[in-house]
């Protein structure tokens, strides 16, 4: 299973963390510090796996961002590597050639999308199309609620004029 997902920028800034195993706040900070140290210093032509504390961290760099997923030692590494890519492709489709800035200002979207992709540290949906459909349905729900609210506030505003 995937124990956690981290998105870390090349400068060591954290862009997303998602923990599927119970880590305390302290442990989370420690993991982040340790792994940034290990992963960000790795050269470009090395393999995508790092052995760490009896686990394996599968990571891949996309432009300035490192996507990391921590798995058990006997899990299938390449499978997880492609989950990362799957996620990136979905983000790319959603934002239209995604860049780090998109994920900084829309970090909540990155979380929504991740939740459609993984639950309990396991892949729930292998189809990009389906994920995209579900996310846009969610967006519509939010939009609809907003319109409703603004129309109500319009009415109130008009009434109180």
């Amino acid at each position, binding site marked *: 299973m995937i124990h956690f997902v981290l998105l870390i920028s090349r400068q060591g*800034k*954290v862009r*997303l*963390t*998602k*923990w*599927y195993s*119970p*880590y*305390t*706040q302290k442990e989370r*900070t420690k993991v*982040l510090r340790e792994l940034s140290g290990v992963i960000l210093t790795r*050269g470009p*032509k*090395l*393999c*995508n*796996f*790092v*052995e760490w504390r009896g686990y394996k961290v599968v990571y891949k760099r996309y432009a300035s961002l490192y996507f990391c997923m921590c798995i*058990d030692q*006997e899990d*299938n*590494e*390449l*499978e997880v*590597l*492609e*989950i990362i*890519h*799957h996620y990136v492709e979905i983000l790319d489709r959603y*934002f239209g050639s995604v860049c780090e800035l*998109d994920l*900084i*200002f*829309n*970090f*909540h979207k990155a*979380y*929504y999308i991740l*939740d459609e992709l993984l*639950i*309990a540290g*396991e*892949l*729930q*949906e*292998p*189809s*990009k*199309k*389906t994920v995209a459909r*579900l996310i846009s349905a*969610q967006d519509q*729900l*939010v939009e609809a*609620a*907003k319109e409703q*609210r603004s129309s109500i506030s319009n009415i109130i505003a008009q009434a109180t004029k």
Partner: protein
Amino acid sequence: MALSGMRGLSVFISDIRNCQNKEQERLRVDKELGNVRTRFKNEKGLSPYEKKKYVWKMLYIYMLGYDVDFGHMEAVSLISAPKYPEKQVGYIVTACLLNENHDFLRLAINTVRNDIIGRNETFQCLALTMVGNIGGREFAESLAPDVQKLLISSSCRPLVRKKAALCLLRLFRKNPDVVNVDGWADRMAQLLDERDLGVLTSSMSLLVALVANNHEAYWSSLPKCVKTLERLARNQDIPQEYTYYGIPSPWLQVKTMRALQYFPTIEDPNTRRALFEVLQRILMGTDVVKNVNKNNASHAVLFEALALVMHLDAEKEMMSQCVALLGKFIAVREPNIRYLGLENMSRMLLVTDVQDIIKRHQAQIITSLKDPDISIRRRALDLLYGMCDITNAKDIVEELLQYLSTAEFAMREELSLKAAILAEKFAPDLSWYVDVILQLIDKAGDFVSDDIWFRVVQFVTNNEDLQPYAAAKAREYLDKPAIHETMVKVSAYLLGEFGHLLARRPGCSPKEIFSIIHEKLPTVSSFTVSILLSTYAKILMHTQPPDPELQNQIWAIFNKYESCIDAEIQQRAVEYHAMSRKGAALMDILAEMPKFPERQSALIKKAEDTEVDTAELSAIRLRAQQQTSSALVVTDQRPANGTPSNTQLGLVKIPSMSSNVDHNLPDQDISHENGTLSIVDPQPPSADLLVDLLGPLAIEGPPSSDVQSQPNIVPGFEDAPNAAEATAIVPVGEQANSVQPIGNIAERFHALCLKDSGVLYEDPNIQIGIKAEWRAHQGRLVLFLGNKNTGPLVSVQAIILPPSYLKMELSLVPETIPPRAQVQCPLEVVNLRPSRDVAVLDFSYKFGIDMVNVKLRLPVVLNKFLQPIPVSAEEFFPQWRSLSGPPLKLQVVRGVRPMPLLDMANLLNNLRLMVCSGLDPNPNNLVASTSFYSESTRAMLCLVRIETDPADRTQLRMTVASGDPTLTFELKEFIKEQLVSIPTVSRAPTPAPPVPQPTSPVAALTDPGAMLAGLL
């Protein structure tokens, strides 16, 4: 793309990004936190929108790494908001900020449940996602049935059901009982017919967890998994959107093959054939392509297929194909594939007898040890370690030593440990071993723990031939300008003990040795100073007649340290000074160290370390565990290795039985001193026979028999008693086949373990009876060899192969037993120390043309040296408390043969453990006491407490206490062996609830490397 509608948040994020340094950022964050805090204080004035915004800000600040110790309540409270946008934020932020142990989550449990059972599909999804990500035990208990309903409901859409599947997986991990309900296995099998691939993928993940826990219940899912795999990999019957770079859902393929690896075997020939067809297709049809993602995905499938093939123990041809593939992979440039090739090759080592093919790649693997990538180097190191045996040990260890000088610190410790273990395990000669360890200390002294150099000292002390060599080597290292302190310690020790053996060599006079060691004194720590003082005393002692000048020098040093602040040093200085003035008496006091006895603490520690709860073992770990002993035996046994009898390094060189001298030491010593160990097996392979019994898997493969037969017995073997039981009799070659034993030998042996007279073995020609008397740590057995025939039995031979802990002496056995006659052969036994090993009687005779040879376990077992003693409550509790230190052994035993408490009490009484009723207030518990006798422990009180669980008779908790850790451990294991249900005859392919650490005691016993590892 700006954050739609939440300007405040966007502005905050921009502000943070514009901060010039960490200090500014902190100020900005603090300001925002203060703001959020005040707003939350006045919660009533907050609109849902504002609340949402602040909660997101909190998450953002939290992600930046700041402590956010408030506002959790607000996040959780958003979950119960009526509108989707607020609820969504509540669920997601809660799942990110809190973990399953957080108290606030409890508050939400009702709302979450209402969302799950409610009609709103989008709410259901949100709730299932959160529970799936951070649900804990409490969620499992209150929500599992609802989630199960959603998963199998026909009215729910796939988007809900796939989330329900993974949510249930989470709950199952938190509490397996909530899912293991009647009928669920059938439902699970039905779920695998699902056409929606999202639901199927999620369900497959759930199935993997379920079968890992209990594959028995899910047999009906097995053919469905194979069908799914056929559908994907063969028929490619899958909607376009579920192919990934042209590959039919690689994730589902991988998951399906993973699930299949938890079934011990596939019995149905049609299913098996179908599966192998698919696997063959995957193995053959995966090509390297340009597109990285396609390549990764297809290789993810390929590596999983490899693992499945290994697990299923396919035919040799397919295995060689796999090794060939791996051989190709470890040579490619793509680092991921190379890494995985190495990793899987290591797994391959555990599984099959393909070592020879793997050895062909040794050069390539060594290249990977120099790879720029540490991940790959680690894999290469692991693989080299695993594939090392006597044929290639020299090369491999030398490579490791060479690499040690350049390796980064992160790897040196592991590297030096591995090198030390291999050097010990496979040393072709002892001087090489000494060389290796000294080099290790020289190159990586910081990473060589004391245990390693202690070990060298033990070997050198116990092997006279080695002493001059080791001393000379130590002397050479002292000439180096800067040496590691550990080197100072070991050199000083060796030169103190054996330096006088070099006296005639240049530069090695006592004076010279003294002065070169003394040069190091100012730079070393106080522990080393005390070793040096001992060395000086030894040098003085060896310098006869005394050299006044040297004597004065050393006395001056003693004199100086007599006032040292360190008590240890002071004491040594005072004592050595006083003793060295005694002249000739010094020779007696400071004579050479006697040979070292066995060091068992390492073994125990090792055993303890592996004593883990095996419930959650994954397929691979489980497999590895099953295979450990086979790997061990295979390396030890292969005649191809050149030296069939002795592949391990013993502490003492003894003509025979040397492969496990390591723990034989004390009685070997005895045998040298007074020659009482009269029976020494004349045949050279005897060492292997003894090893065989300790390493369960070799039992069917004595050295003369076909090595090919071994792999067949590999699957399904989990523990030593099991294996030994099934095959207590060992046919040698084919000669024994014509005479079959009467009755079950294993049963006879077990009966005799509980009583003192009876039949040990019977066949149409002979009956061997046994009668035993026991007194404290001694015993006297009489073997009654009765010829049942009207013709004589000739060439009768009875040889005892005693384990190290017993001293056994068998009186002469006549070569011929006349017709219808009975011969009595007394056998004296002395128990030296606690152990569960079993003595073996190697018995052979000839009748007519039949040559019969059987190896029988003798009922000289641990409980024979027990003497039940009643203990009253007044005596028991103080004893129990006084023993509750580290030697106390507590263990949960699973897989117990269910039996009523009364029967268990009887069993314990039969084992001479006196059950003291009424001591434990809980009627489900048993308390027993006994005293154990051996030469080393004398009479030793042992207390046992067994706590049974009336709800589950197959498990219990056992606590054993005694004054001796070895005894405690052995007694615990012994009782455990008696209690667990061992499938004796039907060796069904069920890795039944494994007895915790089934193989490790065996491995540890026979394997000095393992002992060494345990030390560290």
